């Protein structure tokens, strides 16, 4: 039996004249992910994209998994393709969905006839297919309101498609339709989630990680690679810049008052990240900050850090509780990596009593105490090391 994959592209349907551009990018993204699995033909029609394997030996389960994590799709289903003949449609529905139907108590048939030359109208198709399935499967009942299985029959111009339950897609907008932004990633729970959330809106990611050897370990860097690989499952290729941050942290430690250590450090991070972001063609920064979570994430502290960024700062987790962030972290399979017990550069030096209500003026004054800060920032940017993270 010939099988294809049907994609529902959801939100793209809301686009106007440039809808086709969005769809083309979506197809390009999926094509890239599926390429290692074999050849596929893509076809667009209405709000559905059909993906048809060109050979029989393609791993369709894996293809569906890869499509499910592609942004821009709300639903994925595998469908059987058959001739546009009602008898064949009935038989195919029975064969193809036999397993699902035998485990179900109730079902309904949904029909869509986009080929108006097909002799039966949609309700008639439902009657025929439903009647056939009822006659073959004893004990099965029809429930049009809350069925265990919905059998969908789509009669299209060139063939009929039959499928069961639709699997959820990743939602969002196709990667690459929303520009590029730079994620500041520490290795905790929040920043990978923040990266994922912004990537979901079609944004390509560049990432910046601050490493402070010997205060932070090689394992902490490894952890960031692993986390970004999980984000990359959805977001595609990510360019990671690892910035040597030890000298800057030691300078802050030596020159600035303890209570301002963290805020000053965040400001320096913003400066370094802004430089790399602009150089890499990003139009925004992304952080995992959540309002009030720690002293450096109070509204006052954020005002101080924002003052140093030369680009807009996106903070998608800003209004979320920790457990809401964790929920997404688990969903993208990052949580178990995030909780590995390695210190990152944010946690090595922690003031006993950080200032929770710093003012930008005071932060500036503090920062001015750092000996040749500009040279240190320049050096950090220059010595950043690039690594390309790509899950597929």
């Amino acid at each position, binding site marked *: 039996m010939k099988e294809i994959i049907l994609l529902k592209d959801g939100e793209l349907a809301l686009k106007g004249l440039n809808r086709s551009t969005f769809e083309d990018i979506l197809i390009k993204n999926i094509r890239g992910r599926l390429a290692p699995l074999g050849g596929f033909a893509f076809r667009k029609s209405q709000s559905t994209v059909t993906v048809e394997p060109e050979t029989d030996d393609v791993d369709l389960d894996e293809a569906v998994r890869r499509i499910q994590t592609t942004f821009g799709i709300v639903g994925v289903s595998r469908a059987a393709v058959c001739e546009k003949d009602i008898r064949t449609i009935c038989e195919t529905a029975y064969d193809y969905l036999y397993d699902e139907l035998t485990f179900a108590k109730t079902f309904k048939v949904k029909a869509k006839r986009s080929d108006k030359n097909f002799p039966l109208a949609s309700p008639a198709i439902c009657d025929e297919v439903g009647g056939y399935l009822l006659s073959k499967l004893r004990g099965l009942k029809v429930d049009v309101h809350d069925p265990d299985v919905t059998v969908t029959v789509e009669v299209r111009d060139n063939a009929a498609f039959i499928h069961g339950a639709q699997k959820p897609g990743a939602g969002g907008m196709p990667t690459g339709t929303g520009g590029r932004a730079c994620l500041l990633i520490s290795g905790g729970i929040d920043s990978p989630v923040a990266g994922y959330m912004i990537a979901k809106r079609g944004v390509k990611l560049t990432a910046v990680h601050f490493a402070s*050897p*010997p*205060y*932070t*370990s*090689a394992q902490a860097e490894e952890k960031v690679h692993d986390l970004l690989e999980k984000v990359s499952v959805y977001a595609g290729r990510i360019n990671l810049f690892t910035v040597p941050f030890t000298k800057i942290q030691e300078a802050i*430690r030596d020159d600035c008052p*303890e209570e301002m*250590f963290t805020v000053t450090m965040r400001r320096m991070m913003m400066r370094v990240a802004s430089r790399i972001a602009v150089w890499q063609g990003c139009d925004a920064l992304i952080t995992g900050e959540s309002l009030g979570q720690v002293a450096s994430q109070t509204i006052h502290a954020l005002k101080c850090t924002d003052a140093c960024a030369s680009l807009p700062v996106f903070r998608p987790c800003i209004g979320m509780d920790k457990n809401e962030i964790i929920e997404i972290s688990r969903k993208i399979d990052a949580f178990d990596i995030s909780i590995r*017990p*390695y*210190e990152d550069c944010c946690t*090595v*030096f*922690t*003031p*006993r009593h950080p200032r929770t209500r710093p003012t930008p003026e005071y932060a500036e004054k503090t920062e001015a105490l750092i000996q040749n800060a500009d040279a240190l920032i320049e050096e950090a940017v220059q010595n950043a090391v690039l690594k390309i993270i790509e899950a597929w």
Partner: protein
Amino acid sequence: MEVYLDNSATTRVCASAAQAALDAMTAEYGNPSSLHSKGLAAKKILDDARRAAAERLGGLPEEIFFSHSGTLANNAAVFGAVQAKRRAGNRIVTTAAEHPSVGKCMDELERQGFEVIRLKPASDGNIPAEALQEAVNEKTILVSMMLVNNETGAIFPVEQIRRAVRAANAPALIHTDAIQAFGKLPVRLSSLGVDLLTASGHKLHAPKGVGLLYVKKGVGLKPFVYGGGQENGLFSGTQPLPAVAGFGAAIREADVSTHLPAAKENMRFLRGLLEHIPAVRFNSPADASPYILNFSVEGIPSQVTINFLSAREIYVSAGSACKKGHRSEVLTAMGLPPDRIDTALRVSLSRFTTKEELTAFADALSDAVKTVRTKL
């Protein structure tokens, strides 16, 4: 220059052990249980290794059983002994400083309703012999005490256990985890007076994947792994012959009478170097095994020192390598303050360690103390 000072975690396989393992994989690769001559040749390797271990301990070859790890041997010893003696009493005496492969067994036995007495090391890391005598009573069915502590190198009073058991007229079996001692210190069954003893190959320059359990003749241990009945039914499963062959070679090469004085000299040298670094505070007792030194570096968390040294290809450990991310239970049991525990390092030597390596280590540590500071 690579300086590997984490030999209590594992060791580099010595040349003769690697060769023996290779031969057992490529030439004599038979199954020692097979009845043909290929199997027989493999069995000969197994018997040679068994004899080497028996000679080293002063026991009989038929008292030596090879397991697939030290952990498995410790589990078999502890659970096997308790199973064998469960009708005779309910008390088990051990220490609060055991390796998890004994310590976690004790936790489980406690859950099963046994009374587990854990002797605490004193602040110097040693276990007071008087506490041992008090803890053993006529209901004691097992005393399990490691010979050399894996974190501090402290030598525990295993030799005193037999007397304590006799004095209390206890039905107890005596087990020692000698993993950090075997092949390094004189470990003789006649002076230890134990019924069960555990050792591990990869702590003694043999490949990973082999442990050893000595079971005194007449002591019946109930197995808890069932299968083909290898190792007299105690450790079912085909013997890990390459590792066993390597273990045999490594045992024959370990010469305590010449290696121990050299290790003592190295340890004296190392302590001398570290005494010149003011931030260093020793946690190991003065009379500990000369292969292990535990100390704290004031003001620098263990992981930071490890990172600093690691970048210079110098490899040491924080406490015990088995318990990443947790505060050392041994140092906690010794009553050391949290600051001291969080900055503790374990340096462990091997018979291949040179003074040059120790000097390189001490120099690097001294650099770390000068440049690294996490206190704001």
